[in-house]
């Protein structure tokens, strides 16, 4: 191997060490900056950004969706399609033996409709894969809404704002899946909605 090859190899390895050190330092600094996610934080109406949730937390939430902390996690799950899918998958995957409180949460299948000025909103408990989950479907004739690829729906219940991201399914049809206990469990009668277009 000639000198030039030696230098190249040396530089490449030094860069690997440099990159590893920089990454390690970034990780160490991240740690010292403290918690980014405050367990007690409330979902802000404008807060549609995805809050990082660990897999363990998702599992904890399936086991006990009614604990105060896990209810907070549930609201965050609903802000992210990725987490919602994972959570949904977990609910299917884990037998109700893991989650007696989940099984007891509710079994009353129903479809509730809310009508807005130019949209209809359906909360469908019966057609979800798990009795604790709710399909939310929004139909609209509004041209502006129909042109969106997704809609951010803000449901208000009592003083709590529950954000939902509805994905476009077909022209004028948007849908999302969310946890019943976080949205409709006691709120079916009083739910009010507002749509934000981003």
């Amino acid at each position, binding site marked *: 191997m000639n000198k030039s090859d030696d230098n190249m190899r*040396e*530089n490449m*390895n*030094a*860069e*690997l*060490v*440099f*990159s*590893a*050190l*920089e*990454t*390690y*330092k*970034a*990780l*160490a600094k*991240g*740690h010292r900056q403290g*918690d*980014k*996610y405050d367990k007690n934080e409330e979902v802000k109406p404008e807060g549609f950004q*995805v809050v*990082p*949730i*660990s*897999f*363990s*937390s998702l*599992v*904890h939430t399936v*086991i*006990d969706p009614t*604990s105060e902390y896990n209810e907070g996690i549930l609201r965050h799950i609903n802000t*992210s399609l*990725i987490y919602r899918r*994972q959570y949904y*998958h977990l609910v299917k*995957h*884990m*037998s109700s033996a*893991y989650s007696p409180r989940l099984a007891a949460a509710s079994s009353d299948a129903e479809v509730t409709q809310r009508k807005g000025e130019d949209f209809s909103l359906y909360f469908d408990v019966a057609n979800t894969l798990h009795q604790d989950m709710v399909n939310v479907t929004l139909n609209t004739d509004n041209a502006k809404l129909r042109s969106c690829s997704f809609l951010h729906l803000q449901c208000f219940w009592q003083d709590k704002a529950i954000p939902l991201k509805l994905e476009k399914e077909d022209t004028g049809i948007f849908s999302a899946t969310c946890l019943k206990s976080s949205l409709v469990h006691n709120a079916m009668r009083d739910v009010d909605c507002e749509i934000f277009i981003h």
Partner: protein
Amino acid sequence: MSKAEQNTDIVGLDLISQIELIEQQTLFNSQTLKYSEASIKELKLILSSRNYVNITWELAHLYWVLVHTNGNSNALKFFFVDEAVFAQSAKSWFEGSTFINLDTHRISVVLQGIEVNIRDHVFIVNWSRMNVISGLMEVLVMLIPDLLEQDKELVGKGLNSIKILASDLQKSLYEWSETCMPSVRSHKKFVALSQTFGNGDIRQIDSAFVSSWKQLSNIEGFAKIVNFFSSLCSFLASKDAIDRVESLSEQNENAVSSEQSIYDFVSEYSEQNLLLKLPPTPKVLSQNQLKKLNTIFEDARYARKLPWSVLAVMAFNHAQAQLVQAVRSNASDKHKRDVIQHTEHYSEQLSFLAGTASINQQTMLTCLALMKNSQSAYLIEAVTANSQWLSLMSPNAVISKSHIKDDIESQSTVKNPAETFTPDRLYQAAPELFERATKASKKVKRQGLTEATKLDDKVYVSLIKILVNINDVIESIQKFDASKESIDAKYRSDCSIVINEFSQRYIDI
């Protein structure tokens, strides 16, 4: 979309966020952290060094055991529902399980861990590794959505299935790290530093620190002077690492893999921040002091060799942080100019360092005073930890300094050190030292440093050792060869460059 991109889409998290999540994760309905500090640190080292061959091999074996354990959804149950992730909980979990053993393979609980026998292949997953393996599982399960559904790929199958799983896990981690590690950014930084400092002598590098920062401050990650300093130290460290690895390779033909070398080097580097080793009590330094010193001590090995750079970081970092904040809050240009005009002189930084060293000295003496009735072995360990104290030993004392050192070195063979060493012998050897200690202790009233709040002797011995090392770093920075006039001239020259750069960067002209 590449698989790596898909992974990122699924995770939605970068490496730092992922590690933060795992760090904060508690057990179900508990405040107990699910992953220990040691496990988190190892995960950080493994991921940053991309040294995950061994741990994925362990995880693949553990997973194989789990699918051959009676019960459903065992990986989910073991790692996430029952959370048998600590040594003892894992041991209990497996001791209470029955295994599906076939003619070709056998699983058994042994003293060290869970043993896998597949034909001639024998592997033990140690109990002590369960927590860090579980931490990796927490990372991986977010990367590979169907990771918990590997049963059919493994059940009833042999060693090859474990190899395939381990290889898949490594591949996923590699692809993920490609997307979430700052490789492109890191490459640009490395190239810029190589071009600027590649063949430079460390004194020249140090002397040109501020002008080099100005020259390279438009490179992503270098805008803040403190980050530039940190990357410069990483760069110097990477050069040293290669020199060391090459020297080791020449001596030993069985050189370890480059991943392992990088892991070892990063691991060693991560140990050097002495400030993180300070105990919470007694509190030695204020938060402000710690914050200011932290920039030095994260890279202490190189800070010692870069005194001008350290002074520049200490003098300008705070002002730059204030300017960044001022820009974020739309503060007036007048406010920003005020900030720029009030950077602290290098001589003030040197005074700060001298003051910190003095506080540390007082704290060490107070610890010594509090140990006056201690077991002799601790007392002697404390005294000999500080070379300055050893130099105070009287030449006419009953015992010589070398005698004390010899005694310490032979301590391990002494059955009862207290019988060999007595405090009296030490007091006779160093009366001035103990007078100073008593005097210092009267001035210190902090928690853990008074008779009323006295702590275990071990804490004081450990604290003295840390503070000796901290002061050693500080003194090596202070003792650089520069007159008051040259310090003043250097500050004026650097300050002019920094003010110019700050004005262009943060003030609308």
